[in-house]
């Protein structure tokens, strides 16, 4: 292990260039640590986003050596195999400055996918009885631990090609709700996720699955939505007349 690492970092916003830094290597160093080191010790004007620093908040994702990743849990040893790092902002999001992105589109799309609970009960009712091995519950649980990091969104080409595409994370959330037996919003939700901005735009490229740091599989969630929207279409639930 050489005792420094060469890092080239994106500076600027939509326009800009890569700038090189040399950072001392430390054991247990993550990519976020490297970026922090630069900001604290070399160039105090470097901008980036993070919050929890342990893989919970999903704020720190960047493009590291060409791959979208969470940086607070990416060990330098694993990615800088040749002693160099290139760090850029996440793809498919607007850059605020340097490595920090604006995520409003990403969140808006979660909302547009009806990625929110439609209650059927109130705070005055008791919890529903649902056993942990209930099939639908398991399916809902499979996709629930999304931290909204946007890595899948950055990895997906369809997001790039089709600006309206809701994207893997939003559709994954919609699928967990489709399987949530307590939820009463499936008619609107299925209408919201059908179509060429929704699940039908997905071509199972699986960049989302490949890169999701939480090992979720939006692809399979989206496939589930394709099946459910198809059923809904035949029941005439997606609206419109011939």
């Amino acid at each position, binding site marked *: 292990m050489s005792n420094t690492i060469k890092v080239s970092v994106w500076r600027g916003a939509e326009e800009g260039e890569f700038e090189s830094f040399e950072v001392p290597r430390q054991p247990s160093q993550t990519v976020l640590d490297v970026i922090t080191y630069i900001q604290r010790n070399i160039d105090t004007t470097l901008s980036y986003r993070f919050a*929890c620093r342990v893989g919970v908040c999903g704020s720190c994702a960047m493009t590291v050596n060409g791959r979208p990743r969470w940086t607070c849990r990416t060990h330098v040893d694993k990615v800088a195999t040749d002693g160099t790092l290139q760090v850029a902002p996440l793809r498919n999001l607007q850059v605020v400055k340097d490595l920090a992105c604006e995520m409003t589109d990403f969140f808006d799309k979660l909302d547009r996918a009806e990625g929110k609970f439609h209650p059927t009960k109130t705070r005055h009712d008791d919890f529903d009885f649902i056993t942990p091995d209930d099939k639908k519950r398991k399916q809902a649980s499979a996709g629930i631990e999304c931290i909204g990091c946007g890595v899948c969104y950055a990895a997906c080409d369809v997001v790039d090609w089709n600006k309206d595409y809701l994207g893997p994370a939003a559709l994954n959330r919609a699928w967990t709700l489709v399987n949530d037996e*307590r939820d009463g919003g499936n008619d609107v939700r299925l209408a919201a996720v059908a179509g060429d901005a929704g699940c039908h735009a997905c071509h199972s490229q699986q960049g989302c699955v490949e890169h999701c740091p939480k090992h979720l599989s939006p692809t399979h969630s989206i496939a589930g939505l394709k099946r459910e929207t198809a059923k809904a279409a035949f029941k005439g639930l997606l609206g419109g007349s011939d």
Partner: protein
Amino acid sequence: MSKNIQIEETKTDVLILGSGGAGLFGALHAKAANPDLEVTVAVKGLLGKCGCTRMVQGGYNVALAPGDSTERHFMDTVEGGKWINRQDLAWTLVEQAQVRIRELENELGCYFDRNPDGTVHQKAFAGQTFDRTVHKGDLTGIEIINRLAEQVWARDIKRMEDHRAVALIPANDGTRIAGVLMIDMRSGAFRMVRAGAVLLATGGGPTMYKFHTPSGDKTCDGMAMALRLGLTLRDMEMVQFHPTGLIAGEDTRITGTIIEEGLRGAGGYLLDGNLERFMHKYDERGERATRDIVSRGMFQEMREGTTAKHGGLYITMKHLDPAMVKKNFKGMVERCADCGFDLVSGNVEVVPTAHYMMGGVVFEPDCTTEIPGLYAAGEDTGGVHGANRLGGNGVANSTVFGGIAGDTIAGAINAGMALPEPDRDAIEAAIGLCRQPLERPAAGIDQVRTKLWHHMWEDAGIVRDAASLARAGATLDDLDAELDTIGVDGGNLAYNLTWHDWLNLKNLILVSKSVVAAATAREDSRGAHFRADFPDVRDLENSTFTVVRLEDGKITLGTAPVDFSRVKPGESLLDESAA
């Protein structure tokens, strides 16, 4: 407007500071109670992404199961708080948690874990006489905040993301709050947001200690702003330490983050630098003793005994069944592995880590404060937990009181009400404070941070005494002065993290001063506060709590007697209800 600095001004009916459990519940409740209100959530990062509610692992305390009761939860809370809790607040907490948890599950869509029979699962959490912690795996906070954020996105609630509150601005006649001065972090511009009501929900966060658990955006901003506005803070000496934080060496962000308590519960050993167990020296329960005892034992060991590579100690699970460890602690095992540690068959270096501030702004059960129009909820407030917070009472606190604050606000103000004129001098002064480093040549602020971390940890941390606190007090004054000589490169204020680091340090130093002052005043040991020179709990029946204020730039200190409004030390509500 200010004499020389032109700033933007916006208006809203309700301004919420922070998007943790308290802030988001405040916004949702205010909007639900009066949909005509314009509600704005301003947050130092992205909505729902920063703050500690998201980081909650363990879960949410609430008396739901047959056999448990409001009284029992209350007694656990007050006994855990070593009798200095404000009892009406604690009662509101335990009672309303029962409503809030159902609201979370039924109205917001949190999908909490279930028992095999389909009822909600409640697990054990240290210091409680009943298994009452509702959870979603060990990522309860993500579930809660994601669901809250979704509902906020879906509503007509304004978002001011990457907006940092820097000062609470009173009306120019001083009768109430007029709004909040903010920095739009994306551009670096100042913005005055005038509002009919302001909810302070920025969530405290003891990040002035070398080792700490909270997320990076938390730097006691709310408490510092409250002090500067002249509000009273209570119980500031009460800083909770979690026994096992990860320690990964210099310049690693992950240092300080939590290694789950359950590991000790499952039989994990703590080892010193020579790989020998030591906890039985401090408590017969060994590693399974309560948070404060284990933290203290470890601190003592680190001072006197041999330490590991980075100055910490080790936790190990390797004497246990690897399959069990892998299965039951999957998240922890992965997290360690990502940083190059083997939790299953190796020794992972750990250290006690500053976790939670029990102290904070004095407030009422309806979330009002001394200043009309200003409300407070969550970790920014003091009095609910007393001297120690039970694991699982933190998120209950922020969600319960956040919701109450929203309800109270909606009842107190009208949509489009005439907004008071802000005090222009206060705005001017606040801008001056924020801009002062920009006027000086840039220099490194890192050494100030390092010193603050070090001195708070050594002198005002897990174990304190009169001498160490005096040292800490003097150091803080020096550091404050030193910070005031350091400049920040202000060439581009857009997303200028270093400028914000400077502002963070300014706030942390101020709030640290109040911690030290309060700790100096309390001459006994209670809960999280341990005085080596007064190691015992004293005079429980006449318990007092500390209060601090900022007057003319100096922390002033007082104490007040605890009002045992529901139950006195030595009594129990449980006996009553049993009788």
